[in-house]
């Protein structure tokens, strides 16, 4: 039930508790309430749950996680060769 899906914010309308946005999930558009992510801008990626954006995804943190995966892989390759 706690499923939340990342999507790209395409547009914003309204303000405060009625601030809504059009979010694209791999090309499929859906409306989401943006009341809980006041900092969000068009073009950001948001995580949407039950019609609400609950976070703005942090690109730098995401890149760091992917870098971690890459390093783990390299470490394994080195040990494999050693």
């Amino acid at each position, binding site marked *: *039930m*706690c499923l939340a899906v*990342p999507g790209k914010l395409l547009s914003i309308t309204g303000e405060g508790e009625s601030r809504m946005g059009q979010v694209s999930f791999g090309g499929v558009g859906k409306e989401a309430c943006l009341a809980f992510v*006041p900092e969000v801008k068009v073009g950001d990626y948001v*995580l949407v*749950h039950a019609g*609400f954006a609950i976070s703005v995804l942090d690109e730098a943190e995401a890149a760091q*996680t992917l870098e971690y995966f890459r390093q*783990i892989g390299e470490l394994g390759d080195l040990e494999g060769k050693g």
Partner: protein
Amino acid sequence: MKYVDEYRDQVQAERLAQAIARITTRPWSIMEMCGGQTHSIVKYGIDELLPTQISLLHGPGCPVCVTPLEMVDKALQIAARPEVIFCSFGDMLRVPGSGGDLFSVKAMGGDVRIVYSPLDALKLARENPLRQVVFFAVGFETTAPANAMAVFQAHTQKIPNFTVLVSHVLVPPAIAALLDAPDNRTQGFLAAGHVCTVMGFEEYFRLADRYHVPIVVTGFEPLDILQGILLCVRQLEAGHAEVENQYARSVQREGNRPAQALMEKVFRVVSRKWRGVGEIPRSGYCLRDEFSAYDAELRFGVADYHIDEDSECISGLVLRGVKRPHECPAFGGRCTPERPLGATMVSGEGTCAAYYRYRRRQNDPRAPQS
């Protein structure tokens, strides 16, 4: 899809699994809290990539599964009323109460509707002023801001024919209850990334310290889960009990403050019954008195209804990671997703349903020894 595909890479998954194998010297039991994580683990066979010393225990983090029988019965009673449009997330419709489920109420002529968001239910209330629209507000902390907003908007927009049947539960008290149980075998936790997106992870430092367990806030994609396990095993092997955040692209230490502020305004913390587990102190939300006009239990006079659970189903033991689905004699035979005996077989995120769908074999070498 960005933020999804890159976390499903098979080669990276195998490398992470190898990294876990390299550092594992002893048997460890790690529990993933969230049903969404359980679903990913069983679907992608993540547990089968791990060294045999690592047991993944599947936790109680499926709100559909832990919604108590009496709350389902209250939903059935309210949904059967002719003036009511009863709205729910789809996965609650097949949860068995003591006399049928919401689908059977619908089949008998009840107006039961599946909605994607509680705001959809609020819209129905606006469009149907002569009907009573009730939303079944089930969920963990992830869903609470959405439900709080629906109640708050009903209040500010003066929509009198909207109420919510609240059955909200909270994760940290459940972790404490699991660790206090004498039959607990969990040594480390993968905390639920979306719950923590909303709540942050301040509360987990106290738990990690008090029970000396590592807690790793973890996402839902296969690589997220494998990294969460790697971080958890690394701590276990070193004898550490710290809180780490694997899911930093979404989770901040303090969580989502605007969401928390609205939850605080609309809800207060109460003790809640968990199906299969029993009552856990201060483990859920109910509406604050200022919002009691939107409480479906009060409006429809079901607040004092109580019923005990059937003792046949072992879902309580499954929810606490003490038993595996195929240790139940009814699993896959008398109990299937089409005819569930208990909650863990009902929801797609329930452990029994996930095992039934993806893995029906009986002899899992990782089944805990009893």
